[in-house]
């Protein structure tokens, strides 16, 4: 049946062939998105393969709510991560989910390696392999994306995914830029594309989506839309965007500053959402089918360095996490400087967060004498010096010399060679997100299946506890985090943007699914969420991940959080409980 969600598009880059397989089995069991992607990854990724070898597949998956409901706007990518060596999972919006689904596919599995650089042009008719030799080596991922779109022309709603120099050069945290301002940012999907000689993917879709119950669909849609545009929960993302968080995090002492040597600026931090909007906000954009328009673009007007009365205006997308990583974490406090660094990583195709944390470690290691000017290629990193950081980012993307090569493999790799692991801020191999709120945040970074702050949002539990003046036992915290992570497996299998987690409560998820597909109850969905989470952990274990081997950087224990200093024993106790609950097979989201 054309347009059905369970059509999975397979791409063999070595032979330049593609075909569609009907995987109704997978979709009926696991919904879509993350649930389906983890199965496709398990099936097609050989055990213990090198993540940058041709055998590592890239899976893209959408779900039953994609393109049918507002805020169901994300695509889930899965692959084996070259950064952590186990589960690579990243979610991205833009037009990607809509284009894939309206092209008539529920998922795409990209396998093997092309003999020469190519990009893919995908539509309802299948895949065309386009020569990308001329695009390979371009200094900007943005130019390459524009060329691909212009060359493809054509009808339908289009998305363009592509890598920059960092991905081509196999920096293990290279990201993939989608449209111009969205990303499959974390865990190195860009490097996996680079290893496949795959410069980009253009997908065009314009199809129809039949629904099971038209009346119920219309009613459910109207109700959800009304709540989405009236909800105070969405207003935060709508008005100032995620940088709204920066001020409160700074005031509570949870904002990492200068490699987490400090935790805030009091009540008037730099790079704060309100001031950024007032001085720099140039335009707002939305992902397809999202009324919220959380994408905030700064208009950066700068004089030309040589010509008088010659200005250029660059649009730079900004969010809390990149501002933390390339701003406060590096002591970069001028908004123009931080925005320039954000623009640099956009062109290079680096994950802003891992890149910022890597530079922060290098700056401290240089200050402490572990790195010298010679190793740094004559550069002297200094807090707040955006010019030197911009050059260092180029060196990382181009893998200029042994130090920058290691910095391009993450802070763990760099610290293993040069020392300074007590302030190498990575958890499970992934560089730290911008939350030092308390035990919840760091337990999410440690135990989340992809070590992302979005896995189980421990920072939100910390803030709840702060407000309530309470604390949870390690066991309670472990269970609460796992329950939240299981719920998020349901959302990322439907696939719904996590920013809409407040709107997509249990009843809404059930009503949405029942109208377009078939009746499911929430308890079954949560059981599925737990199951998907266990399957992800099974994949991690298969690839060598061990909870016991998790490193807790000493810096996170030394610097107090708003909930006080953290104790390693408490964190380890919670980690053990997470491991026990996952291994036990018991339903942890009850009770």
């Amino acid at each position, binding site marked *: 049946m054309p*347009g059905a969600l369970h059509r999975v598009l397979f791409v063999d880059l070595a032979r330049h062939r593609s075909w569609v397989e009907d995987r109704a089995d997978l979709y009926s069991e696991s919904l879509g998105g993350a649930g389906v992607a983890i199965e496709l990854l398990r099936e097609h990724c050989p055990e213990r393969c090198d993540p940058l070898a041709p055998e590592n597949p890239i899976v893209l998956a959408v779900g039953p709510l994609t*393109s*049918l409901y*507002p805020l169901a706007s994300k695509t889930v990518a899965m692959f084996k991560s070259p950064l952590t060596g186990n589960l690579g999972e990243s979610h991205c919006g833009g037009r990607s989910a*809509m284009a894939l689904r*309206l092209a008539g596919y529920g998922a795409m599995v990209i396998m093997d390696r092309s003999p020469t650089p190519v990009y893919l042009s995908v539509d*309802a008719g299948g895949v065309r392999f386009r020569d990308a030799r001329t695009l390979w080596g371009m200094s900007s991922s943005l130019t390459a994306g*524009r060329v691909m779109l212009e060359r493809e022309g054509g*009808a*339908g*709603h289009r998305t363009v995914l592509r890598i920059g120099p960092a991905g081509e050069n196999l920096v293990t945290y290279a990201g993939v830029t989608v*449209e*111009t*301002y969205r990303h499959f940012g974390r865990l190195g999907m860009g490097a996996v594309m680079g290893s496949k000689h795959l410069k980009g993917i253009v997908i065009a*879709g*314009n*199809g*129809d*989506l*039949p*629904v099971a119950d*038209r009346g119920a*669909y*219309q009613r459910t*849609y109207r109700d959800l*839309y009304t709540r989405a*545009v009236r909800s105070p929960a969405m207003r935060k993302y709508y008005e100032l965007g995620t940088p709204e968080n920066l001020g409160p995090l700074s005031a509570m002492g949870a904002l990492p500053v200068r490699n987490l040597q400090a935790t805030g600026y009091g009540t008037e931090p730099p790079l704060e959402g309100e001031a950024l909007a007032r001085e720099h906000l*140039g*335009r*707002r*954009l*939305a*992902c*397809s*089918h*999202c*009324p919220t*328009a959380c*994408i905030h*673009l700064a208009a950066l007007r700068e004089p030309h360095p040589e010509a008088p009365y010659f200005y250029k205006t660059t*649009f730079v997308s900004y969010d809390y996490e990149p501002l933390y990583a390339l701003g406060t974490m590096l002591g970069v406090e001028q908004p123009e400087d931080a925005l320039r660094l954000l623009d640099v990583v956009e062109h290079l195709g680096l994950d802003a967060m891992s890149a910022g944390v890597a530079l922060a470690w290098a700056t401290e290691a240089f200050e402490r004498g572990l790195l010298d000017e010679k190793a740094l290629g004559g550069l002297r990193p200094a807090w707040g010096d955006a010019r030197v950081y911009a050059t260092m980012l180029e060196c990382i993307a181009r893998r200029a010399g042994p130090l920058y090569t290691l910095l391009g493999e993450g802070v763990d790799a760099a610290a293993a060679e040069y020392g300074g692991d007590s302030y190498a801020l990575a958890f499970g191999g992934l560089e730290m997100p911008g939350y030092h709120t308390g035990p919840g945040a760091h337990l999410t970074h440690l135990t989340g299946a992809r070590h992302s702050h979005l896995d189980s949002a421990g920072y939100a539990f910390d803030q709840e506890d702060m407000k309530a003046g309470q604390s949870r036992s390690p066991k309670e915290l472990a269970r609460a985090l796992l329950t939240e992570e299981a719920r998020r497996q349901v959302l990322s299998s439907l696939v719904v943007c996590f920013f809409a987690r407040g709107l997509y409560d249990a009843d809404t998820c059930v009503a949405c699914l029942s109208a*377009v597909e078939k009746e499911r109850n929430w308890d079954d969905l949560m059981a599925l969420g737990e199951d998907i989470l266990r399957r992800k952990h099974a994949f991690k274990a298969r690839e060598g991940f061990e909870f016991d081997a998790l490193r807790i950087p000493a810096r996170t224990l030394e610097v107090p959080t708003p909930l006080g200093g953290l104790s390693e024993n408490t964190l380890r106790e919670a980690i053990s409980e997470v491991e026990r609950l996952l291994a036990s097979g018991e339903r942890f989201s009850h009770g």
Partner: protein
Amino acid sequence: MGKRLRVVDVERCVDCLLCAFACARRFGGGGLAKSAIAVRSVGGMERGFVVVVCRACEDPPCLAVCPVGAIRKVEVGVRVDADRCIGCSMCVEACAIGAVQWDAVERKPVICVHCGLCAQYCPHSVLAHEEV
């Protein structure tokens, strides 16, 4: 008189496509194949967008070129008689602003009927449904 759909402030458009999805839902399902309204970027998303939809011409070129008389004028805009339409797509070519969309699934033109559903679902007041 009837109501006509009008693009009142395109600078506020964020490319969410809720208008296009609303239009397609008139037929009960989802997707975009049957949407009569389109949003395009003007040379890069940061430069803004154009919303392309029927202007309800006084003398509609789409009607004039139809070789089988499948397009007729109504109080506001036109209607397509899908049974009579032979799918030649000459109407698509005839519209200078590209407001005749093409349903690639059915191989028929899709033209706005000025019902205003899209304006109800525009979260940023780009569209209005106004008395002519």
